[in-house]
């Protein structure tokens, strides 16, 4: 209803990040896993390089290194060679074979090949999952959730209709959406644990991409959720999906194992956190732990401290669909006027949103944002923000020109407080600069 588009045939300063990269990212949250990009060597090189620059960390990805003749004659041969080598050399627990537009456009149906390969090589005990993610459909968020859905599906199928074992009443599945940083995931895990739950997280970037120094030569992921844990998901009492894009894998779990789920599409700010904690309180029968009550006090107090600096200001935000709406809710909570919301592609959530959202690029954000005080987007927006003289908050993907953005916490009361203070200080410095000309130098 409220989704709009600028009419132009070209994308200027694109916001879209290829879904295959989102898929590679999701794989990083599983232990001893590797993403195998089935496409040209460059697809893997590019996404590895971009993810590396954002997380400042090693990324587990491989390539089937397709060239012209392979595409024309037999891409499966490359895939087989790649799988053989990867399995023989690294013995991964999980390989997600991500098809690119190259394989998609050339019409290669490699999932049949993978079924066959898996049957023949079953003894090697490695889960191989095909997910086709051509770049011309969706964005990072879609690729990420599709891979999670693929993994969940595979786990369900691996169960083969057998009962999943005794239900674990104190166990929760957490499906964190793609806009959450490893820091965010860690925070959410801690929050849920503090209500007395065991948490199974998929994907769990908090133990793989938060930055650690475990050494060794494995080109596999060096953290994330182990496959054995994932199998336990089917016994959980509840699934919590953070971000509307994570509803599909949650629904799979419900259908397969009757695990109810709750989707939290709001992630940022007081109200969103209140909803999550109220839910956890109700589900656990444990009242909100003291620590979070303190954090809520601190957050409300910081909102009071900051409110005048926010009031009357305006913002433009260009982020992935779930992320942009959640940020918009937080901005509204702070009394910020929204000049424009831009997302790279349409999703169900956006269609149902009350807020007007534009499907577009960072150039559109620049147009919508004229006069805005604040600009929120990935790091490519920094220059556009400067051109329209807006303060710049880096969020989303990629943020390759800042340190530590991957451990920033913006969820929970503590994260919201950090957000309130960080952005508030930008607005203060901005106001200060406005007066500077008139003052003594």
């Amino acid at each position: 209803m409220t989704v709009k588009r600028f009419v132009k045939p070209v994308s200027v300063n694109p916001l879209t990040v290829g879904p295959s990269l989102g898929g590679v990212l999701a794989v990083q949250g599983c232990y001893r896993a590797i993403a195998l990009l089935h496409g040209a060597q460059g697809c893997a090189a590019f996404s590895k390089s971009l993810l590396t620059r954002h997380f400042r960390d090693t990324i587990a990805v491989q390539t089937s290194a397709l060239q012209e003749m392979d595409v024309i004659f037999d891409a499966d041969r490359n895939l087989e060679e790649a799988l053989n080598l990867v399995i023989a050399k690294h013995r991964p627990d999980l390989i997600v074979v991500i098809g690119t537009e190259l394989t998609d456009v050339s019409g290669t149906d490699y999932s049949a090949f993978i079924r066959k390969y898996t049957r023949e090589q079953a003894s090697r005990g490695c889960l191989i999952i095909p997910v086709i993610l051509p770049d011309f459909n969706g964005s990072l968020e879609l690729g990420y959730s599709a891979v999670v859905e693929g993994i969940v599906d595979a786990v369900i199928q691996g169960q083969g209709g057998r009962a999943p074992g005794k239900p674990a009443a104190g166990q929760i599945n957490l499906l964190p959406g793609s806009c959450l940083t490893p820091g965010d995931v860690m925070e959410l895990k801690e929050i849920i644990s503090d209500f007395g739950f065991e948490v199974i997280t998929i994907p769990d970037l908090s133990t793989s991409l938060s930055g650690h120094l475990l050494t060794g030569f494995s080109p596999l992921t060096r953290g994330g959720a182990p496959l054995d844990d994932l199998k336990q998901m089917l016994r959980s009492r509840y699934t919590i999906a953070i971000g509307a894009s994570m509803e599909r894998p949650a629904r799979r779990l419900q259908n397969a194992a009757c695990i109810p789920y709750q989707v939290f599409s709001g992630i940022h700010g007081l109200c969103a956190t209140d909803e999550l904690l109220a839910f956890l309180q109700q589900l656990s029968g444990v009242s909100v732990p003291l620590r979070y009550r303190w954090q809520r006090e601190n957050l409300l107090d910081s909102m009071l401290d900051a409110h005048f600096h926010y009031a009357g200001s305006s913002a433009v935000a260009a982020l992935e669909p779930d992320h942009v709406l959640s940020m918009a809710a937080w901005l509204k909570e702070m009394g910020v006027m929204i000049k424009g919301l831009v997302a790279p592609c349409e999703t169900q959530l956006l269609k149902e949103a009350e807020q007007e959202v534009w499907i577009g690029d960072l150039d559109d954000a620049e147009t919508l944002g004229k006069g805005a005080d604040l600009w929120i987007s990935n790091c490519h927006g920094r220059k556009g923000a400067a051109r329209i003289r807006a303060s710049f908050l880096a969020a989303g993907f990629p943020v390759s020109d800042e340190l530590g953005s991957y451990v920033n916490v913006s969820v929970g009361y503590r994260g919201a407080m950090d957000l309130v203070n960080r952005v508030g200080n930008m607005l203060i410095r901005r106001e200060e600069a406005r007066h500077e000309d008139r003052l003594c130098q």
Partner: protein
Amino acid sequence: MSTDLGSKQNLIDEMLEVYPDKARKDRSKHYEINDENLINCGKCSIKSNMKSRPGVMTVRGCAYAGSKGVVWGPIKDMVHISHGPVGCGQYSWGTRRNYATGTLGVDNFTAMQITSDFQEKDIVFGGDKKLEEICREIKEMFPLAKGISIQSECPVGLIGDDIEAVAKKMTAEIGIPIIPVRCEGFRGVSQSLGHHIANDAIRDFLMGRRELEECGPYDVSIIGDYNIGGDAWASRILLEEMGLRVIAQWSGDGSINELAIAHKSKLNLIHCFRSMNYMCTTMEREYGVPWMEYNFFGPTKTIESLRAIADRFDDHIRDNCEKMIEKYRIQMDAIIGKYRPRLEGKKVMLLIGGLRPRHTIGAYEDLGMEIVAAGYEFGHKDDYTRTFPDLKEGTIIYDDPSAYELEELAQKLDIDLMGAGVKEKYVYHKMGIPFRQMHSWDYSGPYHGFDGFKVFARDMDMTVNSPVWDLLKDPQRKAVSV
């Protein structure tokens, strides 16, 4: 010495043992240990420019990266369309740090990333119509753009689009050169073919097409300098100080006009041999422009190169050159005096693209550092023959090594500094090995010329001698954390 060579060979053999037979045999051909023979004759049997193996993650990119990312991207007064789905356009954005002066939207469009953002329907029905519209739209949005290049992504080559026809039609319609580049990512074994394809497009559409109003006896062009962190600027001022006139920069901070007039040079000076040697040989063949390689990394090589360049001109230039060298030598000695004691004897390993594995050797040696192993991401035979003579006996040379091989080597050689690409960076950090990203100078630069050496020396010191490495390794501290 031969014991040393032997132990190096053992080291390589050991490292390759983990591979299955066939792979081991294959990979071993990509290794060589420098010896007197190789140094003297420069010939080598190292295998290079071969297809990478599926399932062995190399550090290589693709043809699109070579064309759009390296060669065409820096041309500042043109709009470069990443033609196809949006991914590649996003990935290649802002990765190379090619500096360029100018005003956005007037004579500089490099800060803009343009993609045709194919949707499913474009794949199904073909993208030629869309491409026409895009050209018109660009003309409208950026009326001052002096040209458009179309950088093909993989699907374009598969769905049978005729971008050449569109380019021709639209050139006529909108009145600026529109250049189709067939750099689909699946072409060739690395970004190297992308360079070649990009070069061919320059040759076919721009080279030799324009005239230079006034030609002079000292006109030269800089070929193969992408102005990373300001490299070309640091080079250009030296040539100008010598009395030469730089009429074109290919392609760092360059313009479309410079691509079309460089054939008027009296001499083409090529820095990155790998990515642009075709252009020099073509200009030589078609326009009789002589060319020479030079190396502006580190004072020793820079001075050598300056003299060699001056020697191609007259006494006036030679005199200028000597005066200039005299002047800068004092500065350079001060730099070396400051940093060499902090870097002496440090062992360096390199894996880079283009010209750097050989060109940077002198700069490291000026600082007393030792190259213990080096190689190319996407080198060709002619790169390697150029490399052996510059390296000491016993240096290990490799081609397109895998991440695993590099990590093994680094540990076995107990190196103090690794220079490679960003994808490799954090592996070495985690191993406690200082690392410099040597493609785009890791947020720094320039590294060329005398100005660049100041930055280079400081950067190497900052990297190698940061206290963080000791903190990382301190066993006592480690105990605390267990």
